[in-house]
């Protein structure tokens, strides 16, 4: 047995460090405050280092999502189709108030794109709270979570796009050079969505009440964005400011871009002199602007609270 008579403190520094205070000791050996948020640049570097994790996580989630359903990943295609069918029944057949040319293509593009934005927001809100186990167990930049969820939504959108192409072709629209616009348009939309998901992830991690409120906010946004009818036709008699707001609404901007890319004739006066749709002026500038602003604001906003996710 060791003797208790000579008490030795294993905690105190020995040798040349004898007598240093704890703070001095930490400084001398370059120790950092535990759990401190890294700088924005270092954070971005860490996040880039986890890119394989983000992709692997997204793929694993996507597979796991449907493991309990018998039809499996077929639901990825069936769900948006059912959505389109419901809207077509209500707005296309029952209300019949639509003068939009190629209405089925118009509607389906709107539904699929809005769905993409909506699910990015919804999964962003739950990105932190649904993965507390992982967050508390392992250390990685927390932005991986909302970004991974946006990647999941993107994978789903790409599957939906294949379905969309079939619908558009069946609606009597043929591939044109404008289809190439889809690539930059979807890329911008991805940045916009990632930004939204990051913002919602921080808000959702603090206030769980927000997930109760979101369905209402999103439904209002959907009806204001003209997913299933032309919002331009509806706000013609409203004050100028309302028309402006309807024009800059990011959901409308991205939907218009993709509708114009896939079905340019809808916006052509020559093809449909009576009921052609107007493309919002400067639509590309607006799309770029929204993508940059949402992504930059979301990224910084999320990073600002990095050390607090999963605490308490």
């Amino acid at each position, binding site marked *: 047995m060791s003797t208790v008579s000579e008490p030795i403190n294993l905690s105190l520094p020995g040798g040349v460090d004898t007598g240093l205070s704890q703070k001095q000791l930490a400084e001398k050996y370059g120790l950092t405050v535990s759990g401190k948020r890294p700088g924005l640049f270092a954070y971005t570097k860490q996040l880039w280092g986890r890119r394989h994790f983000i992709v692997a996580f997204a793929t694993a989630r996507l597979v796991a999502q449907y493991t309990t359903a018998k039809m499996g990943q077929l639901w990825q295609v069936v769900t948006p189709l059912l959505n389109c069918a419901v809207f077509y029944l209500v707005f296309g057949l029952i209300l019949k108030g639509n003068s939009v040319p190629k209405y089925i293509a118009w509607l389906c593009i709107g539904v699929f794109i809005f769905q993409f934005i909506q699910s990015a927001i919804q999964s962003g809100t739950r990105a932190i709270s649904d993965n507390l*186990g*992982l967050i508390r*167990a392992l*250390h990685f930049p927390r932005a991986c979570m909302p970004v991974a969820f946006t990647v999941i939504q993107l994978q789903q959108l790409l599957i939906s796009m294949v379905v969309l192409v079939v619908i558009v072709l069946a609606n009597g629209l043929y591939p044109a050079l404008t289809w190439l616009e889809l690539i930059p348009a979807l890329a911008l939309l991805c940045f916009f969505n990632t930004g939204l998901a990051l913002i919602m992830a921080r808000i959702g991690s603090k206030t769980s009440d927000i997930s109760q409120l979101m369905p209402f906010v999103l439904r209002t946004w959907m009806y204001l964005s003209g997913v299933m009818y032309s919002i331009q036709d509806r706000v013609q008699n409203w004050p100028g400011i309302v028309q402006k707001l309807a024009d800059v609404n990011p959901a409308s901007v991205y939907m218009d871009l993709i509708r114009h890319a896939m079905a340019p004739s809808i916006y052509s006066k020559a093809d449909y002199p009576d009921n052609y749709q107007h493309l919002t002026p400067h639509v590309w500038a607006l799309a770029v602007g929204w993508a940059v602003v949402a992504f930059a604001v979301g990224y910084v906003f999320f990073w600002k609270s990095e050390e607090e996710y999963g605490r308490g």
Partner: protein
Amino acid sequence: MADTTMITDRDERDARAVAQAKETRVPTVVVDDVHIIYKVHGASAGKGSATSALSRLISRKRSPAITEVHAVRGISFTAYKGEAVGLIGSNGSGKSTMLSAIAGLLPTAKGAIYTNGQPSLLGVNAALMDDLTGERNVVLGCLAMGMSPAQVKERYQDIVDFSGINEKGQFINLPMRTYSSGMAARLRFSIAAAKTHDVLLIDEALSTGDQAFQRRSEDRIRELRKEAGTVFLVSHNNNAIRDTCERTIWIETGKLIMDGPTDEVVGMYERGERP
């Protein structure tokens, strides 16, 4: 007798630790007068009703259901490279809270914790993804810790073998929700232990595994220490502490009672004495 050699081994180990304390050592974790206060939501009795929530919103008062728990009250110590430190104390004494704070998962109300690199916390409650297979969890866990896909491929078989998950069939291909708590804990430990950590914090994670696994983990902890890491171990199994740690910190009601060579501290703790 094997038992007596073990004990002399331990005595030697503790004596070595005491001798080393007089020399210059490299600190890895510095805990400087730390206080930790939990805010617990929904703690007070009843009154979660809609009307009380509404009146709270209107009167702009903070929720009365928030109770403050002063879990750690002014603890200071320094841990050095190559040390394995045991944390003991009764239930609710603040051991696990201390570990979470070192891992940077809990904010300190007062004082500061300085660490070398990012400590990794390994606890029983830390779930990975239950609806995914063990295989996916291994890959994801390794990637999340910052390994490259090539490194993951290289280590994968070692991790699975170490965990012993496949000893009773191809469990690695089943979702983790089908695992027993011991199996899940083993897999988690195996994933976390696959990487060299500067500071590894283990919270009761070993107690769920069986004998063979506990031995393997103790060996792995020794290896991690040789790779110049520092290991903290919280356990109610005093023998596990005796076998793995040469230094032990005894915490009671958030205060440091004793900090010294394991046999001395654990001995006092078991006899119910106070220094």
